C-alpha cells in the first residue's frame, strides 16, 4: 500500500445537482499537483461518470441513496478517486465494462470507457444488492496524448 499524503472523503445525497459539486471538489483536490487543464478536465469527466453511474444505475435515481467519493494523494504523485454506492450492484462487471454496453435503452454505455481512457487504473468491485466501488488512479504527470 502506498502512503497517503492527503485525503478528502465525502458523502452526499444521490441527486444530480451534486455531480457538479463532486467535479469541482475533484478538480480542487487534484490541483495539489500541477496538472495541465486537459488533465484536470479528464479527471472531471472520469469522476462525473462514476458519480452519475452511482446515482442513475446504483440507486435508480432514488435521492435517498448516499454516494461516497474518497480522494487521496498517494506517495509518488498518484491521485486516487474511490466512488462508492450501496445500491443495486452489477451482476456481471466484465460485461458492464465493455464499450457500448448499457442496461438503459437511452444510454451510450461509454461511462466505463471514459473512466478507463482518462485514468491510468480502473478497478470495479460490485456485489448485487450490496453496492459498487469504483477505484480510479492517475499518475502525475500524465502521459502524453490520448
Amino acid at each position: 500500500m502506498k502512503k497517503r499524503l492527503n485525503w478528502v472523503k465525502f458523502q452526499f445525497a444521490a441527486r444530480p445537482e451534486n455531480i457538479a459539486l463532486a467535479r469541482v471538489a475533484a478538480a480542487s483536490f487534484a490541483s495539489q499537483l500541477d496538472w495541465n487543464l486537459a488533465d484536470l478536465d479528464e479527471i472531471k469527466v472520469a469522476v462525473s461518470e462514476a458519480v452519475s453511474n452511482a446515482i442513475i444505475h446504483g440507486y435508480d435515481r432514488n435521492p435517498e441513496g448516499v454516494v461516497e467519493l474518497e480522494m487521496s494523494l498517494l506517495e509518488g504523485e498518484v491521485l486516487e478517486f474511490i466512488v462508492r454506492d450501496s445500491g443495486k450492484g452489477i451482476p456481471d462487471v466484465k460485461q458492464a465494462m465493455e464499450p457500448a454496453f448499457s442496461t438503459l435503452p437511452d444510454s451510450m454505455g461509454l461511462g466505463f470507457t471514459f473512466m478507463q481512457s482518462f485514468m491510468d487504473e480502473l478497478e470495479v468491485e460490485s456485489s448485487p444488492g450490496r453496492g459498487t466501488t469504483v477505484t480510479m488512479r492517475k499518475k502525475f504527470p500524465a502521459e502524453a496524448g490520448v
Partner: protein
Amino acid sequence: MLLDMELKGNILVVRPEGELDLTAAETFRKKVDEAMAASGALHLLIALEKVEFIDSSGLGAILGRYKQVTDRKGRVALAGASPAVRRVLELAGLPRIMKLYREEKEALREMAAEAS
C-alpha cells in the same frame, strides 16, 4: 443550465451554456424537443461555444436528439466545441455520425446550402 435558441429558416440553433452533465442533459432534452415541435424546424444545429464541460450524459442527450431529428429526415450538426469538449466527442465517435464545425456561422451557411 442556460439554453439560448433561435430559428434560422428551417434550422433550429440551440446554444447550451455551462456544464452539459446529467442535470443539464435533462433540461436540454426537454427544451430542445419542445422547441423542435413548436418551431416546426427540420434541422438542428447545436452550438457548443459556451459549453465548458461534457460527459457521457451530455453526449447521450445530443445523440438522443440526433435519433429523433434524423428519423424525421432532418440533419443535426455540432459547432464550436472547445478542445476539451471535442476530445470527449471524439472519444465517443460522434464525428463519425454528425458533422462537427469549427464555428456556428460556417455550420449555418453549409446547412442552409445543403438544404436548398
